[in-house]
């Protein structure tokens, strides 16, 4: 290791009265300096790269007052997800039907919602009917982007996910469900205010299952 060369033992005296100046070494012990240097390096490395916050884009639609201009959603291709208390998701396909013979209001969790989205997407793709008027521009733009499966780009055109968080849903739930849209490549989705009927159904389910 680096150390100070004391250089003290080389002073031979040649006779009386001869005084030789002590030869001081130019070498310095660098160990403490290196120690400190590396301490600072580790400190800066940790503070610099530990947290790198990123951003996620969110586009919201304009408020449309004119009813005629609202985007129409095909009932067969719609999946409505409602976010409730305790990380629960409630969902229904198409139109909400709650009666004695038919009930399509179901409950799920964040772990299983991906399968539900993908199943619905596959179902919509299976029913796809090629309409050149709508499909050709979508295929063209996918081709331009370099998508190798551009011919399939139009198949999920009728698939729409409607997201309705209620007052008990957390911000994390909202971001998670938006993330799920990206992961599953859902091209059309919307965040909509929840209706009173749906809210009532969620409340009733929460009471019967005891979710707090």
């Amino acid at each position: 290791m680096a150390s100070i060369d004391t250089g003290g033992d080389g002073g031979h005296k040649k006779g009386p009265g001869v005084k030789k100046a002590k030869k001081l070494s130019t070498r310095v012990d660098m160990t403490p300096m290196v120690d400190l240097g590396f301490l600072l390096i580790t400190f800066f490395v940790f503070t610099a790269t530990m947290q790198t916050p990123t951003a996620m884009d969110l586009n919201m639609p304009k408020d449309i007052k004119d009813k005629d201009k609202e985007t129409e959603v095909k009932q067969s291709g719609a999946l409505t997800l409602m976010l409730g208390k305790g990380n629960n998701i409630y969902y229904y396909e198409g139109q909400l039907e709650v009666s004695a013979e038919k009930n399509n209001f179901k409950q799920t969790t964040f772990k299983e919602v991906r399968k539900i989205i993908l199943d619905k997407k596959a179902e919509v793709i299976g029913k796809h009917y090629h309409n050149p008027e709508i499909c050709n521009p979508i295929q063209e733009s996918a081709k331009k982007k370099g998508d190798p499966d551009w011919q399939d780009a139009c198949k999920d055109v009728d698939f729409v996910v409607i997201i309705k968080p209620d007052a008990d849903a957390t911000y994390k739930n909202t971001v998670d469900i938006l993330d799920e849209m990206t992961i599953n490549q859902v091209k059309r989705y919307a965040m909509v205010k929840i209706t009173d009927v749906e809210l009532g159904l969620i409340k009733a389910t929460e009471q019967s299952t005891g979710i707090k």
Partner: protein
Amino acid sequence: MPSVKIPKKSTDTDMTPFVDIAFLILSFFIMATKFKPPEPVEITTPGSVLSQALPESNAVLISIDSTNKVYYALLSEKEPEKFDDVINGVNSTQNLGLTPTEIRNFRKTYMVGVPFAGLKSFLNVDPNEQAKVDQPGIPVLDSTNNQLLWWIRLTKDAFKGQPLKFLIKGDGNSKYPAFEAVVDALRKNEEFKYELVTSLEDVPHGSELKKVQRWQTK
């Protein structure tokens, strides 16, 4: 028998190049590190698979903490005079009667989380001490008194003709109505594009996004 002489090797090594490199790295990290300003609240952001770098200038950061309080922060490092424009706008539209010292303090204020009525006394506090002040949050939930609307409008006025980004940084445990109220305030100002601040998460294997990312990187 003549004994074999083993040459005595010195244990000393020349550390100079080593130290050179160490200090080079050190100076790099010192220069590259940017310290976060002190935040009055701790916000744990949820994770997301999308990643983009955050803008540092020409942006408004709206934070929602775990107790649903809303905070406003202006990010404009390059043009500090924008801070003055915004606070002067607030001062004149809300008739707060701020003193020049209070207006100057706003430049160093990182986050504002007080209603207009409490802004004067909040800005009276030294900027270095402001992080310790317990702020009640900007009122947003009452749609007739959504004060964030004013903050956004006045910031837009100050940045007229320049790009301005809106960042929303919410705590994972904050409730949806607070987020909705923030989006509502932005929407009423004709702003429809936001960026949500999140921490990075891995893309799940076999998902459709993974496939798309594969051909996009090619």
